């Protein structure tokens, strides 16, 4: 069942197209991330869903009912959503319990029920003992949990998260990713999560929507997005990759360093001219010609030892092509060594 539906949504600020013809359906209980670099329109999209910004074109529907179109917008307070903000926006003048109970108070629930529900949700986010504290007496991670509890306790139709972890330090950020996913598994609230951090999106989401310059580049599961990127932007934004110009010629894929039969590849080319995306760890290095014909011959141009991996730059074809290759620490080569880079074409993606 479709919970939330964005149809041809656009938003311009003056001449600038912040969001450009975005369409997206969210299933009930689905956790979707909007992922992209800053300025890609993800936060604007989120704020349109929340009702803080009206769209310039397109509509937003929830449960089949229109919420936003350019002519009229249901105000945020009438949308039965909740949101977690970058700055948490924990009200400093209220205790933890008052913060969390605020939305229930607005919904005019009886006091006893508010108290019971606040108590229960604070247990869930491990803040049971801090109910009477003021926000200034909490750590960053605890404030983040208050924000989560405050958003979840009202059992919103849709939960919106706007880069909620960007103000936390690295280790806490990692912990909170799993916490957010755990809470989602427990409450199954339809969620939209905005982030520029791919690992955050991968840990938390059922589906990731990669955005660039106001448009959706690709929307898919984390596994599919990484393995089968459809565009150059997605291939290079999600993880590292080598992009090689290629074209289709007489049943072969022709590129600098070789011409391999199209049949050997696992994906279909998106057009006449395209690029191959080869992940650095999908390449293996050896001193001998590998069995099977799919290999490049090159020389080690640079190398860096990172402890868990070797990071090599291999100059192929006299330096016309440079391949980044990561290997295990045991695969040791010196700069200047001649090497063969073996690639399995069936896991090479072809992107626009």
């Amino acid at each position, binding site marked *: 069942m479709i919970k939330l539906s964005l149809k041809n949504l656009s938003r311009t600020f003056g001449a600038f197209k912040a969001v450009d013809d975005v369409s997206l359906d969210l299933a009930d209980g689905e956790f979707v991330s909007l992922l992209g670099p800053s300025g890609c329109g993800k936060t604007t999209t989120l704020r349109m869903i929340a009702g803080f910004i009206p769209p310039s074109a397109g509509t937003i529907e929830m449960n089949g009912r229109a919420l936003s179109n350019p002519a009229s917008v249901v105000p945020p*307070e009438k949308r039965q959503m*909740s*949101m977690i903000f970058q*700055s948490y926006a924990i*009200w400093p003048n209220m205790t933890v319990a008052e913060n969390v109970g*605020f939305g229930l108070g607005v*919904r005019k629930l009886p006091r006893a029920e508010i108290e019971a529900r606040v108590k229960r949700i604070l247990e869930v986010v491990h803040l049971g003992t801090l109910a009477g504290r003021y926000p200034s007496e909490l750590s960053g991670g605890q404030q983040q949990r208050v924000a989560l509890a405050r958003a979840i306790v009202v059992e919103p139709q849709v939960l919106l998260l706007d880069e909620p972890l*960007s*103000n936390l330090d690295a280790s806490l950020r990692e912990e909170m990713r799993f916490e957010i996913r755990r809470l989602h598994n427990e409450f199954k609230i339809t969620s939209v999560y905005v982030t520029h951090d791919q690992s955050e999106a991968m840990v938390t989401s059922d589906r990731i929507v990669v955005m660039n310059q106001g448009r959706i580049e690709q929307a898919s599961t984390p596994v599919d997005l990484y393995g089968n990127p459809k565009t150059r932007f997605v291939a290079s934004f999600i993880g590292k990759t080598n992009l090689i110009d290629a074209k289709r010629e007489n049943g072969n894929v022709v590129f600098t360093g070789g011409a391999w039969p199209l049949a050997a590849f696992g994906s279909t080319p998106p057009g006449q001219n395209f690029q191959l995306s080869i992940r650095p760890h999908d390449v293996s290095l050896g001193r001998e010609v590998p069995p099977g014909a799919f290999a490049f011959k090159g020389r080690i141009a640079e190398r860096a030892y990172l402890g868990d991996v070797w990071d090599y730059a291999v100059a192929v074809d006299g330096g016309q092509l440079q391949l980044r290759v990561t290997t295990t620490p045991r695969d040791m080569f010196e700069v200047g060594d001649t090497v063969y880079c073996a690639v399995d074409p069936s896991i090479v993606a072809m992107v626009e």
Partner: protein
Amino acid sequence: MSDITLKPAPAPRGRLANLAPLEPGRLLWFGLAAVMIFLVVYPLWQIVSVSLHDSDGNFTFENYAKAFGRARYIQSFTNSLWLGVCACVLSLCFAVPISWGLARTDMPGKRFVWLGVIGAYVMPPFMGAIGWILLAGPNAGWLNRIFRSLSGMDVALFDIYTFSGLVFVVALYSFPLVFVFVNAALELVSSEMEDAGAILGASIWHVARRITIPIVLPTIIGAGIIVFLEAVSLFGAPALLGTPARISVVTTTLFEFFSNPVRVEVAAAYSMPLLLITVILFLLQYWVIRRRGYVTQTGKGGERRMMKLGPWRWAVFAYGFGVIFLAVILPLIIIVQAALSKAWGQGFSFDNLTLNNFRYILFEHSTAGQTVINSAMFSFWTATLAVTLTLLIAYIVNRKLVPFSSVLGFLAVTPFVIPGIVLAIGFYAAYAPPPLALYGTGLIMVLSFTTRFMPVAYINAASGMRSLHPEMEEAVRILGGSRMTAIRRVIAPLLKRSLAGAWLIVFIGATRELSTAIFLYVGATRTMSIMIYDLSEEGRFEHLSALGLVLVVATMAFVAIGFRVVGRDFMLKRS
């Protein structure tokens, strides 16, 4: 370990090096300390001391008995407190909705309202009082005359010579103080705080009432306390409005003690509880803001967007316009009318129009022209002295050049808790008698004004100094420049704007200073503000309005310069 801790600590060589006899920082510290003792410590000490001695120098409590021995004096005291409380509440009612409208909403006409608040800030309270005498005096006041001619009833609708009239006028000219603080605090609240309420289902009013205003409540309380302090130490408005109605307050009673015969001892004793209250409330205000001042999470996502009020935004604008209309527009219209009239009571007719009042006051009157020169000179020297002094103090305090340097900073803000009139008593007690015998000189005016405005100047200088990273200066020194080179080439140029701002604020404040001046002037050192006060006692409102207009217009010109030089934050900066 234990034997190490038992040994006497080695001499702190670094400290000792700092205390080397010829270290310039140390010399400067001594110089500044001497100046501060002269300006702050000794006058304060003299108030206490004089209040406890009789005219022959014997220790006594007699002065306190005299000061509080009469029911009337006690009554003045409770009047002052009640005036403070009422003015505080009313000015909060004026200021808080306007601050909210300007800082958080899409109310129209923001620039206009903002300029109006500056106008109310710039208007000396005694000029406001005079404007309202012309408007709402029971017999001749314009509002009452209009009401009588419209209704045909022979009653006064308003009477400004009442306690509520006094409260109204005091609040009308102290609300900009609240605005300065509350507006600054509201501007710091991130919009996400409000969005978080909206997305959970709260309406705009619910959000304002439950979230936005409570977040800045500590600031509102602190600002309220400041208004209270301002109201109880005001002299001009209570003297103009209260005295005819036989309502006396502490400051007017102190003035009574100072009229012939001068009883400084009794005045000193009488001012003691006022001083005590201001100190306590100031500390309370500090504590409220420190303790309950919320540090809002800013950084990412801390931007501010204006709330959309829909049609209500016109209501908010109307409220702000109403307050400004009462505080600035209406009184100014009436003062301009009086200044251009042969007789202000005859109204807005062409026959009544004249420029004679300006000619008379500026060129023909025996002393009025001199008061303009006096005001300008005293204010110039006060501003120069205060800014120079506080810059040096701020430098020493900020760079911690010598141990105990922060004592100087503390002394520089101490005058904040001394009502102007009490400060004047201190200066009188300390420096009127021989050997210095400064009473009646311009010097004592400049020195007392300098003390009075030192806190404002210091806060500006210190905040400017804090914004300069010491590394700016260290970079000069590592490249071979001396400390003086660093000050001359780097620090002074960087602080130029904020020092110019501080200079202008002190200058403007000094031109309108009344409560300190009125105790220390003699004929030759009379200032414009005293002249205006004297003219109002004689009932010469046309001349007074002309002189007052000169003062107001000159002040506005300086404020305009300030905005040019310093930018939008000038005057309305939270300090």
